[in-house]
């Protein structure tokens, strides 16, 4: 069983080296699990009867997703194949150590489409936990696998899964900057923008259809909104000086931005089409990195108004400014969690830049990474994992860390630096 898990991990690591020969545009992220939860749920996914090749893609996607989450321990399925309606010997699976089991099938319809069906069982109680059917196609088999993994994850942990989500990040390689979009497992990477000038600060619109980001292609920082399906790009802010740090309002209508048009970095809000500019802060120092809270009522931001960069909050309409971080002389990049309960930020401690998470109710702060150069945290939509940019051996990599610091994954690209991650919203 351990060998199986290992070979799966190795496949993830080595796959990108083969893909490299296909072409750099395909540069895939590879994911390595470097830490797992303490109490992992033992689960078995048996092979689906029907189309063996399609079954392999779907079940391996489900298994890899569950394994990567750090919350599940995969119990060997002994190469067994049976469908969702076959009788289950619960006592037998229980004795093999599996608390839950999923079985399914793949049916091909006359029009070439496929239907992936599955059912999840609780072997402890000997009951079905429900199932679902997803219409899919050869090109969408992995997506169907992610949906099944999300179903299993939600039934067994009680919170929504994020396997069907996408992530955005910037790759720097060969003197170019690539803004890429990939599935949450690093597969299906596609390049949305290529530039010889830096691209920073991508953020997903709440509907998952657009990215706002800062591009230096006009030889200075300018904010764009980029529709992913069409490739259409719109300039949202291109004033004198720097235009940067976009953060979407939860309704997707506005962006909080940072403009230096009046000399230094101040916060403004602007409609997503670039109209309706409003100044939000009036300070003589640096105000930057605005992020709306999930309820839209508060903006968290970084400011040096107290003498060192710290996290502050204010009313989304401006005013009622309060300091949020107090420990240390450098706390930046605040990111409120989607569930509104916590705040991730980067804290400098004894010269190390580390990911910290504050519980907003108790204001307790916990450092959850053990790296030195963490940047740009981004919450998964279920608030459980946080994606960060960090550095391993002088190379930029991404790392996903659970908000309690236990589970860790590392995402790398074979031939370049990866940075500026942004975790997209739930699949819609």
């Amino acid at each position, binding site marked *: 069983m351990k060998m199986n898990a290992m070979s799966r991990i190795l496949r993830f690591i080595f796959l990108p080296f083969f893909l490299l020969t296909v072409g750099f545009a395909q540069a895939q992220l590879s994911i390595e699990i470097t830490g797992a939860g303490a109490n992992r749920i033992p689960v078995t996914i048996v092979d689906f009867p029907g189309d063996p090749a399609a079954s392999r893609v779907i079940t391996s996607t489900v298994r890899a997703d569950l394994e990567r989450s750090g919350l599940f321990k995969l119990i060997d399925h002994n190469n067994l194949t049976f469908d969702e309606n076959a009788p289950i010997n619960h006592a037998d699976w229980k004795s093999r150590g599996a608390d839950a089991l999923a079985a399914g099938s793949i049916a091909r319809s006359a029009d070439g489409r496929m239907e992936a069906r599955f059912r999840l069982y609780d072997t402890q109680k000997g009951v079905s936990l429900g199932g679902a059917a997803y219409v899919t196609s050869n090109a969408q088999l992995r997506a169907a696998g992610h949906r099944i993994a999300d179903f299993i994850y939600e039934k067994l942990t009680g919170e929504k899964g994020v396997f069907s989500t996408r992530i955005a990040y910037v790759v720097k390689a060969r003197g170019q900057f690539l803004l890429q979009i990939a599935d949450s497992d690093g597969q299906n990477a596609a390049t949305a923008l290529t530039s010889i000038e830096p691209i920073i600060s991508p953020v997903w619109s709440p509907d998952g259809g657009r990215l706002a980001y800062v591009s230096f292609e006009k030889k200075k920082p300018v904010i764009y909104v980029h529709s992913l399906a069409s490739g259409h790009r719109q300039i949202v802010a291109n004033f004198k000086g720097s235009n940067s740090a976009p953060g979407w309002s939860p309704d997707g209508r506005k962006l909080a931005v940072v403009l230096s048009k009046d000399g230094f970095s101040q916060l403004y809000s602007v409609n997503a089409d670039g109209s309706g500019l409003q100044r939000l802060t009036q300070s003589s120092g640096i105000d930057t990195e605005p992020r709306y809270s999930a309820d839209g009522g508060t903006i968290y931001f970084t400011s040096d108004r107290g003498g060192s960069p710290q996290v502050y909050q204010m009313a989304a309409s401006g005013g009622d400014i309060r300091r949020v971080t107090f420990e240390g002389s450098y706390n*930046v990049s605040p990111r409120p969690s989607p569930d509104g309960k916590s705040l991730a930020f980067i804290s400098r401690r004894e010269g190390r830049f580390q990911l910290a998470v504050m519980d907003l109710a108790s204001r307790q702060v916990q450092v959850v990474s053990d790296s030195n150069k963490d940047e740009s945290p981004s919450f998964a939509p279920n608030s459980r994992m946080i994606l960060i940019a960090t550095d391993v051996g002088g190379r930029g990599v991404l790392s996903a860390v659970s908000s309690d610091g236990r589970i860790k994954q590392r995402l790398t690209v074979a031939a370049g630096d990866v940075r500026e991650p942004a975790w997209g919203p739930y699949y819609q």
Partner: protein
Amino acid sequence: MKKLLIPALLSAILVGCSTTPLPEDTAGAPVESRSGSGTGVASVTADGVDANGLPRELTDPKSKLSQRSIYFDLDKYEVKDEYKDLVASHAKYLSAHKGFKVLLQGNTDERGSREYNLSLGQKRAEAVKRSLTLLGVSEAQIESVSLGEEKPKDAGHDEAAWSQNRRADILYKGADGRGEF
């Protein structure tokens, strides 16, 4: 305007690289770089303008005005006392040559938040701008921008590199539009 920008920036980058204090690096004419290659020919450039069309006094390493970089401490954006003379020299030149413009580019080291560094670089450029205007330079002659941590002069990952990258550079442009930006 757009057409001008790329060659202008390229030349700005070339000149930007040549603002180190080493005399053999500072001259604008590329032929001088061959002088050490064993040809036995000492290269001399006539008085007048350099390759960017700027007066020699702005680029001649013997001139104080060829020093264009102001370095900052970690997290700081105050112009240190040791650069007051340098800033004063540039202020004097700009006050006497109203047709000239400067682009102030603020930079930071690679550590910490990219966005915060973009703002910090802006503050550094603004600090130099304020020093110049306090000494009588017209605001209309100055533009300040930030490159944040995105364009490191030294690509290393240690304090030696970081100290080089916590910097504001002064780039010149003459009344005829020729220059370093």
